[in-house]
């Protein structure tokens, strides 16, 4: 593959990178260039791209190894025909992508997607995934990220009962009472999560903020479509360990010797 000149589109590239391209390792992006404030207003009208409906979504840009481009033109690196797989895991507010990267090799045959509303953070994860795919050919094809407001637009991306796992790791606590409605777990939003999650599917929540954990537990307990998974059952779940430790936020909590409160719920039905 021809190496274009470093002045392409104004990118500053140290000279070593030109040589690195022919070597096996691509340098992973560095987080320090992708820091962004933790809070984003989920209710405002961000400039987000979202499809009119799940059938309209072209996943070939995110998962070129599994989806053919919708407009029929063969794209570089994309397969010619859909593999038939659908995304099953979604990490809402995936941050710097720690969980996804960890789960990608634990469940290599499952497609998983992270959603992140912050621009720079999503950029970082995207670059990281592309680098990982290059460094480990054949791996990490099943993971990707999307810049998206999951609170508003989940039904635009996922069909009814499509997902088998939904992750909410260390969500924004929105401490003030008037901000509680912006929390990612609310009674009304839980119905939307139940729509995209199949019966038997699991919601994973973890937080270091006890108040938020209690709030999430309260609302999940109260919702007719979710039932708590007892701790003994969780021991068999390979995803749980990564939920606790794989994310940057989780590692930060460990460094600061904080507590982590985990709560997982199964989606059930109450239709007669």
């Amino acid at each position, binding site marked *: 593959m021809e190496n274009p000149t470093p002045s*392409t589109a104004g990118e500053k590239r140290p000279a070593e990178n030109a040589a690195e391209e022919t070597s096996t390792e691509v340098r992973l992006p560095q987080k320090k260039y*992708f820091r962004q404030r933790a809070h984003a207003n989920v209710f405002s009208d961000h*400039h987000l791209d979202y499809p009119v409906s799940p059938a309209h979504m072209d996943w070939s840009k995110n998962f070129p190894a599994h989806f053919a481009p919708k407009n029929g033109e063969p794209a570089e690196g994309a397969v010619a025909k859909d593999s038939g797989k659908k995304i099953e895991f979604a990490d809402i507010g995936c941050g710097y992508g720690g969980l996804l990267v960890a789960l990608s090799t634990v469940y290599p045959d499952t497609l998983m997607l992270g959603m992140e509303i912050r621009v720079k953070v999503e950029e970082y994860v995207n*670059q*990281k995934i592309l680098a990982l795919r290059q460094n480990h050919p054949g791996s990490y094809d099943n993971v990707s990220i999307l810049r998206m407001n999951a609170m508003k637009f989940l039904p635009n991306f996922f069909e009814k009962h499509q997902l088998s796992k939904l992750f909410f790791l260390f969500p924004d606590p929105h401490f003030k009472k008037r901000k509680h409605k912006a929390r990612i777990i609310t009674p009304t939003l839980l119905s939307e999560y139940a729509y995209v999650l199949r019966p038997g599917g699991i919601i994973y929540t973890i937080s270091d903020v006890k108040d938020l954990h209690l709030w999430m537990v309260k609302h999940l307990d109260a919702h007719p479509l979710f039932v708590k998974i007892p701790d003994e059952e969780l021991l068999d779940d390979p995803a749980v360990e990564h939920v606790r430790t794989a994310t940057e936020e989780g590692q930060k909590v460990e460094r600061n010797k904080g507590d982590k409160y985990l709560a997982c719920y199964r989606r059930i039905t109450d239709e007669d």
Partner: protein
Amino acid sequence: MPLLPFSHIIRHPTKDVVVLSFGEHLQAVDTKSGTILASTVALEERESNGLQAQPLTNTPDAAQENKARVQVLAFSPDGAFLATAADDKVMKIWDTESWKCLGTRTLVRRSNALEFNKDGSHVITADKFGDVYNMVRDIPDVVAPVKTAETSEDAEGDEDEGEQPILGHVSMATDLALTKDNKYIITSDRDEHIRVSQYPKGHNIETYCLGHTSFVTTIKVLPGASQKYLISGAGDATIRIWEILKGQEVQTFNIREALGMPPAEADAEDDVTVFSFSICERKNHIAVVVEKESRILILHWDEAAAKAELFKIVELEGTPLSAEYDRSGNLWTSAIPAEGQTSNAVSVYDNEYVQQDDLAKYVNTFGSKTVEVIPDHFVYTEELRKHTTDWRELKKAREEKEAARLAGDPDAPLSKKRRKNKNSRKIPDVAAADSSSAATPEQVQE
């Protein structure tokens, strides 16, 4: 001095009566004779043009003292009750025999849509926050405001008290409809969603009807034996028909084409917006009021073919605000007169869509009240539009484009600023450029 225009017209389900709202007031009109039966404001002394001065069956209602504009109205299916809600969050239930207000209730938030369930026992409201409440209709005469966590901010642990919504959208709810058997409730929002949920167990979402590309303004279940179809209007210049339980679009009706308008400009933010529908079951006609458009579209609905076709265009004088068929199939319309014109506030069209001035003469002579200035009637649709010219949005748009380009998306447009300051970027390019490098050279040539 102008007359306050009639913002809404709604027909009584079992009697030959329509109720018109104007500002904070209501008037009930007999559709056979055109006489005003009841009014919440005393009829003004006016030039009667030879018409008999109108005696009223009731006196003005003291509960209408505040200036809150009536936004939504709904009759119970048996016609016994009328529910109205205004923009001060107060909902009122009226008795439709005596036209007296039976009770009031302060809603959690302003209602954008109000409907009764089929036995009239509950009133459902979809509010501006996106929440839908299923409230028992019985209201004592004096009611304390409904308390929930949002209304009592200082009280701790209050979140358990108060009415809970049966379902909620994350953005503003714009309309709601129930299937005739009340098994399903359909709600629409500002983010183009139409959601079909079970009723009253609103937490069970059946499906979504996705297809509109702009805020959905109004939805109605279409009449017919099958009860399968929904009609929706939005700010994207289309009317769509859906098979409700499948969430499938069966038809897109292009309003611009029907009105002979050219296609919208590519980056136009706002487009032709549907205001309301009125359905005449007997004729299977749907009257469509389009925002700030003097022509009303009459569509004919063919259930067997699952298709709505343009039947006729009725041109009004002035800007229509509402249109409603009465039980005889006459179409009552209300409009804001054009600048400098003195056209009638209400025009009635018979079954052949020929204007009949007789029926409207009483309400045009004695109805409504004079005001200094006609208020803006389009404030609420304006609220639905996404304002993307905010500086924050522009900044985000720039960030978006940059992020897309960095991520290696070959379709991302290059911002003009980038071309000038090629070397001032802070983020070092690493892995992304490798996979997208084949695509980027073309962009720089632009």
